């Protein structure tokens, strides 16, 4: 599965997280999506920054920018598609200390 034009040319991707800045996904995810065993959603850079800060401030856990996408989605859906009181398993797959310098620069640039 690729981000590509109607003629099969690969398009430029963009993401705030380097690990997601790629116009394709791996075969396992492609299979899970195509077979309907997993749902995939999109999250924008702004929500990711908020999620990273929120989890850091509330729990002292700094999520990687990649993992912060999942946190952002959970914050967005809590009380909506995901009822309050639901037990949710979130895979915090990476640590964000690698990202703090980049996030600091982005937030400072806005002051």
């Amino acid at each position: 599965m690729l981000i590509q034009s109607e003629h099969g040319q690969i398009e430029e991707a963009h993401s705030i997280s380097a690990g997601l800045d790629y116009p394709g996904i791996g075969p396992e995810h492609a299979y899970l999506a195509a077979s309907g065993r997993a749902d995939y959603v999109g999250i924008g850079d702004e929500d990711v920054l908020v999620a990273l800060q929120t989890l850091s401030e509330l729990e002292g856990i700094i999520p990687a920018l990649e993992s912060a996408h999942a946190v952002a989605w959970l914050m967005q859906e809590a009380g909506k598609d995901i009822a309050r009181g639901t037990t949710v398993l979130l895979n915090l797959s990476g640590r964000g200390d690698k990202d703090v310098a980049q996030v600091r620069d982005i937030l400072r640039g806005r002051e």
Partner: protein
Amino acid sequence: MKSLEVTLRDLRSRGRKALVPYFMAGVTPDWTQHVAAAVHGGADAIEIGIPFSDPMMDGVVIQRAAEVSLAAGTNLDSICAELSGSDLGAPLIAMTYYNLFHHYGLRRAAGLLHQGGVVGAIVPDLTLEESDEWREVCDETDIATIFLVAPSTTEDRFALLATATQGFCYASARMAVTGRAQGAGEATRVVEAVRATSDVPTFVGIGITTPEQARDASEHSDGVIVGSALVDTILHGASPAETEEFIASFRRAIDA
């Protein structure tokens, strides 16, 4: 046997070393005139590069040419439409990457190529093990599937690839992407490894930059492929007449 291989075997039996230039389709509005000029200058077959956004086997020159061509709006449909009905005087071999064919649908892509008069396809990122579906579709037409071998190819794979390839076997002279280089690389060893298992015509490419390199490579093989050195001159504004002279200079060196 596909018509490409009949032609190339016939060439060899007449003692002529094949000269196969590579052109990037759509890189200039007059690119087909460059192809015709090359045939006039002594080319025996033509590789038509179909531009792809992520050309994993190509170096900077052909990458640049692909970008220029794509920016001009080139795609597989437009190339095959341009080629169809134009007799350029030599067998045409498409070189591109598998995603284009996969995305178009194999039968549709092969049909377009066939309509464009293409009789061979080089798809460097298509491995032998993944190629059955493509080869079956090509067998419904006259398109030969050409495989590459390289200095890193192992003995048992030389046998598999030299047997599976149609038209000719593409012998990469070095472990490199397409581009200018010096010397002969490991061409002789690679060609001899193919010849140990098959009598398919074997052409040397990757890094053939000068007529002298082409002459040396052709002495130990059935022909040579020249790509980046030629494409570079076209990117720098060479005319079809200059392309003809470029090819003629290689022809003279090979035939000398």
